């Protein structure tokens, strides 16, 4: 079976302008959304707070929960349904956290037990993050992204050349910004696992990009006279089959995770899903053409030394 015919030769590079335009649009929308929402929707991992995941054994609604919480002064907490409706699970989030031994989470649990009956309330998960740790994790998250990008830049420069590295980084930042933007548009929260997903997307998206770069390098060695533009196009087409396939299979498994993995890992799977799709697109339409753009701006000294 073959999805992509061997002799395929789509003029990817010709469509470069359209692709860049689409990407630019997506990036602008992402940034706009971030600005309008006042930055990414940071979870308690990064801003500190208390989060309690509660399961009710019978039907419950956000109104009733809010009433119970107002009684203890937490009426303006965020109350969300978690998972499928039939689960009767809710997430209660507040920015406040208490460093006292008798914490907010216990008061929340007590208040709900009083309102709904202790047997009907089950605490599935509690997360309390003090402001110090929140700051710590913010820093760590940013540093992690930074180090990863730098590490990758160095590696690609070593294996290929600086301009390839720049093309790769541009594709990466494109992926990250758009994924963050989609999260922002949908109001989804940024937690530590989401940062992990972003880093994975970075690493993974690079796979595709490198496969194409490898092919470009191989083709350049074989045919030095040909203009770079043609070589790049050929390379992308030659690796198209493999790119679509790998992304396809990875997509399959991530979809399994997305639908079957449960509510806790749901957003994480979603981030991976978006990242893989956007990453594949950027590997084909952004990374390699970026190398071309770089070439036209500052062509390499020797034609042969590419």
């Amino acid at each position, binding site marked *: 079976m073959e999805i992509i015919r061997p002799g395929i030769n789509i003029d990817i590079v010709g469509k470069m302008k359209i692709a860049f335009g689409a990407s630019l649009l997506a990036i602008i929308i992402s940034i706009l959304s971030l600005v309008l929402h006042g930055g990414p929707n940071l979870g308690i991992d990064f801003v500190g707070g208390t989060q309690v995941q509660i399961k009710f054994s019978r039907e419950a609604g956000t109104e009733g929960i809010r009433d119970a919480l107002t009684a203890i002064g937490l009426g303006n907490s965020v109350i969300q349904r978690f998972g499928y409706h039939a689960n009767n699970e809710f997430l209660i989030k507040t920015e406040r956290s208490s460093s006292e031994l008798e914490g907010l989470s216990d008061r929340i649990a007590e208040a709900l037990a009083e309102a709904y009956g202790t047997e009907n309330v089950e605490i599935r998960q509690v997360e309390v993050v003090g402001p110090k740790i929140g700051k710590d994790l913010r820093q760590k998250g940013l540093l992690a992204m930074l180090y990863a990008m730098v590490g990758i830049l160095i590696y690609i420069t070593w294996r290929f050349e600086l301009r390839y590295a720049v093309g790769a980084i541009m594709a990466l930042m494109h992926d990250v910004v758009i994924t963050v933007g989609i999260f922002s548009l949908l109001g989804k929260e940024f937690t530590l696992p989401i940062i992990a997903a972003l880093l994975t997307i970075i*690493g993974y998206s690079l796979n595709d990009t490198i496969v194409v770069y490898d092919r470009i390098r191989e083709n350049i060695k074989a045919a030095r006279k040909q203009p770079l533009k043609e070589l790049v196009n050929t390379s992308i087409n030659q690796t198209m089959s493999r790119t679509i396939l790998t992304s396809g*299979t990875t997509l399959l498994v991530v979809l399994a995770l997305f639908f079957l993995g449960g509510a806790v890992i749901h957003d994480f799977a979603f981030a991976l899903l978006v990242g893989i799709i956007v990453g594949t697109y950027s590997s084909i339409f952004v990374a390699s053409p970026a190398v071309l753009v770089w070439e036209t701006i500052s062509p390499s000294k020797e034609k042969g030394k590419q």
Partner: protein
Amino acid sequence: MSGKNIKARVIVTLVIVATALFFLMPSITQNLPSAWKDNTDKIHLGLDLQGGMHLVLEVETEKAVESAMERISNDLKDVLMEERIRFRHLGREEGIFTTLELAGREERTAFEKVLKDTFPNLAVKTSQIIDGREKIWLELRDKQVESIKKFAVEQSLETIRNRVDEFGVSEPEIIPQGEDRILIQLPGIKDPQRAISLIGKTALLEFKLLDEEHSLEDALAGKVPPGDVIAYGYKVDQQTGRRTKIPYLLKGKTLLTGESLEDAKVTISDRFGEPYVSLKFDSQGARDFDRVTAQNVKKRLAIVLDGVVHSAPVIQERISGGDAQITGSFTMEEARDLAIVLRAGALPAPVRILEQRTVGPSLGQDSIDKGFLSIIVGSILVIIFMVMYYNLSGAVSDIALFLNIILIMGTLAAFRATLTLPGIAGIVLTIGMAVDANVLILERIREELRLGKSPRASIAGGYAKALSTIVDANVTTLIAALVLFQFGTGPVKGFAVTLSIGIVCSMFTAIFVTRIIYDYFVWDRNIKRISI
């Protein structure tokens, strides 16, 4: 790689797979000979999968410094009075300074001698002449402050360990973090709130005399006699269950502390069947207690726990046995927990909760179930697809995939790495990505075949050309995983670990193992056509 040494490579593969299975077995069944069990362990599940509590505490080391200063300034007062050096207004300011006023030169010189001889750790920070008298600010030397802080953290660690030990959690983890933080992990804990109370309670037990000479009302109004302190206790109405606060006027000086305790036990009172905590002092403590009770018969002695007056019974007679009791309206659990903290000792400084993450057991089991369902379904989808797309070659890749999963789980077990929910997601992801290496090789082989090369040459060429690409592509994901490992915590670290292990294993199975199968068919069996 030549088509020969197939046997050698098969053996290498079998050995590696067998090793993985060796480490994996305990997670599947407990029916193993003890020698096997001794050297291996079930796969460690993260807190998010087995349920439990993760706690980060901060030891308020400044308070430890303040307490030390308090003790030293009391000692200083005693020594100055012994040496008959006249001073006025010896007190504390801002918690960390001791201040006093000296009359003149003579006193100052004598004072400095006392400092040098008896209190080398105190240093004069600054002094001022106020109304003709010299006011001196004293502070502890930096090195001393450092060592107090360090010791406070060490002692807190030790005390918390003792308390957790008594609590009976299997495989607790209590490790220092940074300069003043403690990380505690309690897997499988059923009552997290009780655990937190037990761990975080300062549990400072103090015995102080009640000041019955001065008026409590006056003190409450604002006129507290010098050296006295107001503390509160609670009284619970048996019928209504309501708690009322009761003030007490205590003499500031602490006569005995929990440090003098040798043991604390829960006993049931004969009268009402109520539990109470019976204390036993060590030999020095018993002597001190004997002295205190002898000097203060008919006076009231307040038992203060963490600044709250627990009870203030009248000293009926001199007690020389070194036994005492703490009564009060305890539940059995409260009494037991109090006995635990008294036995384990007081924390040298209060602790604050910086971070707490608790996962209930039901959620943990849920996550495990859903995680493994994803792995199974994901694998099936990929297996079917590979066979559909690449025919028998796809089946070969599937064998590699299956071995991959065994290797990953085996490696996790062997290294005692922790499997978390994101870790399971990492395995699922690796399944998808492992296919990548196989696809790269297979696509190359297809290309070579299309160019008209023989099966042997196509296979050799396919593997050779794909190799550098595979390595490059996987290394970048590996870099991302390593960064995550470095900066991540808990569940995220678990993800980084399984991702890294998965990448390495998948490279091994894709490059080494599948090659064996191909080589067998192409060299030993000499087939003319590859089903791809």
